[in-house]
């Protein structure tokens, strides 16, 4: 198998997951595809070196995070953050839930967002996340804790709003 075949096999298998990871980081599928593609391009360029590595996917994640963080530096958040949160309960499988989760992620700074995504979507250990981001495990833990708290507040706050809104509606309906 040539290096190129080898790469295509890896890339085909990894692309969907990379793109999903990128989506959670950047918040839009189009950019996510770009990020995933750029990541794969970079890996292809150094594939001969990379493939000798055991943890190829970890390498891909690291490249993706770097690409993502660099892109946020380049153009300040292309993501549109709306003021109004959709009025829906947090945990359900509706489109609103998805939006809400994305909103909550959107409140995080790029690095903490990457930490959360790698840790809870990528199922990486604290050590792996630290290696990917080039920081200490302590930093990962504290960023995780802080990010979770922040997301929780967003989600909770919304829920309270949602409940209040529901209450209004009920009152109105009953009244």
């Amino acid at each position: 198998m040539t290096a190129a075949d080898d790469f295509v096999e890896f890339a085909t298998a990894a692309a969907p997951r990379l793109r999903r990871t990128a989506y959670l980081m950047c918040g839009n599928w189009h950019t996510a595809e770009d990020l995933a593609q750029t990541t794969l391009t970079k890996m292809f360029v150094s594939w001969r070196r990379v493939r000798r590595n055991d943890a190829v996917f970890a390498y891909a994640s690291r490249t993706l995070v770097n690409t993502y963080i660099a892109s946020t530096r380049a153009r300040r958040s292309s993501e549109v953050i709306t003021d109004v949160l959709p009025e829906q309960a947090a945990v359900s499988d509706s489109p609103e839930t998805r939006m809400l989760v994305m909103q909550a992620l959107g409140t995080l700074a790029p690095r903490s967002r990457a930490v959360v995504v790698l840790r809870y979507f990528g199922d990486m250990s604290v050590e792996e996340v630290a290696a990917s981001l080039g920081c200490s495990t302590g930093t990962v833990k504290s960023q995780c804790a802080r990010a979770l708290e922040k997301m929780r507040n967003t989600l909770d706050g919304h829920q309270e709003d949602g409940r209040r809104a529901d209450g209004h509606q009920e009152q109105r309906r009953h009244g």
Partner: protein
Amino acid sequence: MGTRNRGVMDENELRALLGRAVAYEPGLGPLVDNAVRAGTRIRRRRRVLGAVGCVAVIAVVGGMVPVLGHALAGRPEPTTAHTVRPSPSGLGPSLAPDRQPSPSASRTHGPVSRSAPPAVVPSTSASGSGAGASILAVDSYGSIFTVNSATHSAGKPVGINGTVVTSVVSPDGKTMYALVDTDEIVPISTTTHRIGRSIPVPSATAIVRMTVSPSGRFIYLSDYPDHQVLAVDVARRTVAATISTGLSPDQIAFSPSGTTGYVADTNAASVTVFSTVTQRVLRTIKVGQDPVAIATSPSGTVYTVNEFSGTVTPIDTSANVAGRAIRAGDRPQAIVFTPSGTMAYVTNYWSSTVTPIDLASGRALPALRTGSRPSALVITPSGSTVYVLDNDPASVTPIDTLTETAEPSVRVLGAGSEAGQIAVTPDGSTVLVSIGSQLVPISTATNRAGAPIRLSAPCCEQMMAP
């Protein structure tokens, strides 16, 4: 109050939420194909001169402290060296490192022969005068090694974090800048090998080449996929400007005064001209298709090597206009000039020849046959011999510039091995060819290959084992 949703606090809940957030995704585009295509282009660019992922670089400047000191001492008068220094790699072997080699190429021109330009240290070889020049070489794994050119032995790796993407040496020869995949430029002293404060840059992996301005104040990063060149202010350690170029910028040459830069837009048929003072684009000059190399001749004319037109285009740097194209062979790759500025030599990858060009008349002379698939070439500081790197198999073909004849090729390694770059030591005694994780020295006196110098650390060798 009881509204606090404990579920969301739960890490498992968050996992589930994130999973749901990506549940309805649009169909996947052809990103794997696109990545392969874009990656291939970048790789091709990086290797222009044939560095198929091997030892990426070579050569850096002469290092003996005393000698270097001497060389530098002679250099305050920048005037002489100007022209030369800037020229982006003459043909550079394209990797940053090659910038070094280019010294041979570009530097060679004029100045070198008499008073050594910056880093060129004339007499290292002569008597092995005590010490050899020190060479910094980057191996295929992106680690930097010191090599003693007198004893041909590799020293310890220079400890940097991350992998070197590309590198370049400052015009004064004092500093090697390594672009590392941790998105920073790391300055390394070529004399003490000490590492300085790094300069953060966005997305190192998109950069195919670094070029230092003649004044040494700016490092230009050719961001190939994004069609722009980033001007990094060395003193302020920031990206000072972004220069939009034509498609796929790569090599950069400078006018003799150093105030104007010429970016080769390698996927277009143009050169983007910019001011090194304002970092603004001045104009775009049309040249042949795919200018893969650009360099300034000792007489101050910029030449592009247009791969798909099979031509060389001169650019008058005072008027910034292109002259009549000169026909070379099939898929020309690189160019070097004699120190006197009378002749240029261009490798033709597909025709397996070198085209000598009489620069005064702008005429190509009959092509000289080389080994198969010649890519890079260097010229000795005296200008007497051009060494051409052939790729299939790796060999080096010497060309005597006096008689304009090609001599028998020197085989570098067994068949099938791909060569990376070629450089000549500042004293002109040795030509170095990178291949795999080795440097093969060729004596310019005998045109014989010596024992290869191994660069890679043991861990790399293990990884290489089949």
